[in-house]
């Protein structure tokens, strides 16, 4: 019970900080909308909808990167992570709190981005939206862990994409598959499996990332 309370307190803190600084969410919103507008003009008018679904996933992954790059900045800029790490709570609660907060920011960006995509490109069915939601969980779970590693270095803006993009390829495959395949359930199952495996791995390894 106290684990859930710790996670809730940490995630609430991130939301509060974001509400006051407005550093992350506006940047994600502007980025995803600008990207969709650019893609709208870049894609030939006679291009198939399948190509547009691929571009949606490029926009989603890079929007998540915008949020993740900033995710651990408050903790590292002011040394707060040291104070959190010394607390007797389970250290994985710090990762889970950050993951949930980042997931909330990404979902908020998609509340705007998905209708914009439907307006510019092609309609999104229920399997495609389910694919987006499942992939969000995977991106935020793995991304929060990798962002914590990258934030400890001087070149976090370069390191994070190098670490995350290869691991995001299965999510893009699953996400596009759930939108264009005649059997989307296979891809949704694949995304669910990815989420479960990588969430457990990230949860278990966070302790080693934040301690030397």
């Amino acid at each position, binding site marked *: 019970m*106290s684990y859930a*309370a*710790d996670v809730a*307190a*940490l995630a609430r*803190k991130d939301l*509060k*900080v974001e509400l*006051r*600084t407005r550093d992350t969410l506006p940047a994600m919103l502007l980025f995803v909308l600008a990207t969709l507008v650019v893609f709208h003009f870049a894609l030939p008018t006679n291009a198939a909808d399948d190509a547009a679904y691929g571009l949606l996933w490029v926009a989603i992954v890079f929007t998540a990167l915008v949020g993740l790059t900033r995710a651990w900045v*408050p903790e590292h800029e*002011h*040394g*707060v992570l*040291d*104070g*959190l*790490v*010394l*607390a*007797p*709570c389970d250290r994985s609660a710090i990762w889970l709190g950050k993951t949930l907060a980042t997931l909330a920011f990404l979902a908020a960006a998609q509340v705007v981005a998905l209708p914009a995509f439907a307006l510019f490109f092609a309609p999104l069915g229920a399997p495609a939206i389910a694919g987006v939601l499942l992939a969000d969980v995977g991106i935020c779970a793995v991304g929060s862990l990798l962002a914590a590693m990258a934030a400890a270095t001087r070149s976090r803006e370069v390191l994070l994409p190098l670490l995350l993009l290869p691991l995001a390829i299965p999510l893009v495959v699953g996400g596009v598959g759930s939108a264009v395949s005649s059997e989307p359930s296979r891809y949704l199952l694949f995304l669910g499996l990815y989420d479960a495996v990588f969430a457990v791995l990230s949860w278990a390894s966070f302790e080693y990332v934040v*301690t*030397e």
Partner: protein
Amino acid sequence: MIRARGLEKRYGRRRVLRGISFELPAGGFLVVSGANGSGKTTLLRILAGLVAPTRGTVDIEAGRGRIGLLAHEPLVYRELSALENLDLYGRLYRVSERRERIGMLLERFGLWEARNERVAAYSRGMAQRLALCRTLLHDPDLLVLDEPFSALDEAGVALVDRELAELAGLRTVVASTHEPDRLAALATAELALT
């Protein structure tokens, strides 16, 4: 109690600490002095459990959650208020009756009036006082204090002097300073790093 044996720390090829050994009984007060770059902060981070030594061992009786660390940074979120920061730390550090304890510390360190202001609006001295509140919040068994007087005005220094005098003998304290004479009256052991 703290028992350090042959502590060495390297960052790449640079050796920051070499052959540090000491024993500090429970309730002891160790003053660590030395010039900039002599490894004071590194030693304190090893004792706090934030950094692993490259060589040597350190045994500390106080477990995780029973250590109070005062670092160069206040370790608080600048966009949250003092009250919000301490409430978060109080929850994570399992402080019982945390609202009462937070109120008492904020009063004692002269921050009660500014408790709802964001830390970003605090002066350096106020932030240091808040850092002291955070350090003492969970009533730690071991206090690891890195330059506890830095950025404080005269009143702040007097406040810290008073707190340390009250804690000396009751808690184990390791404090680094450029001015070892200031803590000489409280010290039960001294370690000069070169």
